[in-house]
């Protein structure tokens, strides 16, 4: 991926994501009643996502690869989808300030995708209609889990501050606890069916293409564990009223497992030859 325009777009997107993260951080720690840095952060995150999306399209054209194939693109697409979902949904759930978590995550995913090899070998051997469904469902689900994770982290920070009886400062600039809890649940609820589709199609696909190596087994196990954790969080919330802190910890654990799956893909890509 040495095309200068693609590289320039990648750097620009990274810089914009970084600027968004800084703007959100300044908002959280800043003074004054108006919130110019929050708006700035939202705009920068949106702009970063647009640049990143353009970079993905350009990159896929240059490499002549479908952008849903391979971990290289997958991480990028998750990042863009998460940012886009944040920009669209932030007003509905009143979670603007969780951009402070979304922006660095988007940057991390972008850096991860840049580190991975642009390669479709993982899926190259399979010409199946199942593949796009599997990949897309996982990517959309992952993007929604990014937002659920961000809301969960925001919840835990706000909860900790309130339990310490700190009412001003950061907690005053984070969304209300209730809004964070609802947002986390909503994103989890929306992402879970996607993950389920991803798991089912993945199981079907694995039988045909996977080698049965330790890495493949670990990835599958972590995939199932992610699904089980999220299912548990949702079921316990519905059945036993597990909200707030417990649900937040469950969501964070589920997201951590999902990230492990991505990391396994990422590590595996390092061992594969360049396209």
């Amino acid at each position, binding site marked *: 991926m040495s095309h200068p325009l693609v590289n320039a777009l990648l750097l620009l997107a990274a810089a914009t994501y970084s600027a968004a993260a800084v703007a959100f951080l300044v908002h959280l720690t800043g*003074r*004054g*009643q*108006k919130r*110019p840095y929050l708006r700035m952060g939202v705009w920068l995150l949106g702009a970063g996502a647009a640049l990143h999306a353009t970079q993905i399209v350009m990159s896929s054209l240059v490499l002549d690869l479908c952008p849903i194939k391979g971990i290289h693109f997958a991480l990028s697409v998750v990042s863009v989808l998460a940012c886009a979902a944040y920009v669209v949904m932030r007003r509905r759930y*009143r979670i603007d300030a969780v951009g402070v978590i979304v922006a660095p995550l988007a940057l991390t995913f972008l850096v991860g995708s840049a580190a991975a090899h642009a390669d479709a070998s993982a899926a190259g051997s399979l010409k199946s209609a199942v593949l796009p469904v599997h990949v897309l469902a996982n990517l959309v689900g992952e993007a929604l889990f990014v937002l659920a994770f961000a809301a969960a982290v925001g919840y835990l920070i*706000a909860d900790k501050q*309130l*339990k310490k*009886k700190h*009412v*001003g400062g950061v*907690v*005053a600039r984070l*969304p*209300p*606890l*209730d*809004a964070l*809890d609802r947002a986390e649940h909503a994103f989890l609820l929306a992402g879970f069916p996607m993950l389920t589709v991803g798991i089912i199609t993945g199981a079907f696909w694995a039988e045909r293409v996977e080698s049965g190596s330790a890495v493949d087994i670990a990835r599958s196990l972590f995939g199932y564990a992610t699904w089980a954790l999220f299912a548990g969080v949702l079921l316990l*919330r519905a059945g*036993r*009223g*597990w*909200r*707030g*802190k*417990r649900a937040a910890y469950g969501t964070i654990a589920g997201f951590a497992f999902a990230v492990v799956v991505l990391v396994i893909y990422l590590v595996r890509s390092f061992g594969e030859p360049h396209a």
Partner: protein
Amino acid sequence: MIVVVGLSHRTAPVEVRERFAGEAGAPEVMLGKLRGRPELDEVMFLSTCNRVEVLARPKGNADADRARALKAVREVLAEHGSTSENDLKPVLYEKEGEEAVRHVYRVTSSLDSMVLGEPQILGQVKDAYDAAVAAGTLRSFLARCVHRAFSVAKRVRSETALGAGTVSISSVAVELSKRVFGDLNDGIVLLVGAGEMAEAAAKSLGKGAKEIRVCNRSFERAATLAQRFGGAAAPLTALEAELATADVVVTSTASPNFVVTRDLVKRVMKARRGRALLFVDIAVPRNVEPNVHGIDNVYVFDIDDLEQQVAVGLDARRAEATAAEKIVEQEVVQFLQWARGLDVQPAIVALRAKTRGILVAEAERSLQGRLKHLTEGDRAALMQMVDSATNKLLHAPTTRLRRAAGDGDGQTLAATLQELFELPTLHEVDEEPDEKTEKDEDDERAVQ
């Protein structure tokens, strides 16, 4: 320049201030009286519960003009307060020029308010401004000063945290509910206890709530209070059921024992299926067992916590006041520079008139003589050239003169110009600003 005469919580006790309330003090009435005074060129009347003051621009710039204007305002205020000028004088403050501009900016920015940083004062000054505009008592100078005051207040609000934080028990309770629930549009506020403190909290918290419910040992008192807020009442025996549906609970009973215990809340949280619950315990002794705060999704703030937040809010505002005062000082300097620029305006106008007059006269003489053959189009082009030459020729001196005026040397330079160019006596010209700057227009839009 402007003068300010008035009284406030800093200079007059409430017995004096309350004499200025009522219909006789309505802005229209006061503006009518002030407009009738020949000593005043422009006036604005501001009346709040803690402040009554008149902003005015005297007719004329001499010291005697200012003294007459101050006396006129004092007389109107004394009449308004049904007292004599001498009796009123000890509680009045009088400010002139720079000090008056600073005062207007400080008042509008809430730096002179009883509760530092309170937001209402800006709206009250805007209302006073609108009333003065409607009564036709404002012209360019005072109007500009007040407009600048609005933008100063805006700067103070956005660049400092003077208005941030909470400075009363009720507002802390409201802030707490915002931290947990955002707004209470779908929320229920439960008052446990029906005393005065519960009523005060209900007034603040109840504004945005879906419903207010009152739970009290005496059902009659609960019903009376609930009726006042359009809510429902319940006896104290139904507390557990009430807690299961409430979102914010304000406790204020005189009970010597805990009314809300950890065991009770644990049972309630099961029934609530983990939904968050906020207790604002304003009772002494406390009504809510302190370890209830340790239960997941339950938050308890007692009177000490609330008072601590009030103290934090007040301290933070006092700390921010220094930064706000700096903004005020910067803006006062800018306004004074602009105002001093007006002193040299007559010299600029006279110089332009003379220069253009000479050039036009010479051009016309040529047009009647050697240039008689020129067409109408050529003549128009020639006159346009004259205007352009006037502008280019006078651009540098005009700019430098204004700059010098801002530095306080304007009068000297204006007198020199008058001497050098034999300009006519510099009568005061209408001090309309030449043109509104983009910043002014932005400020005006912002205060709409």
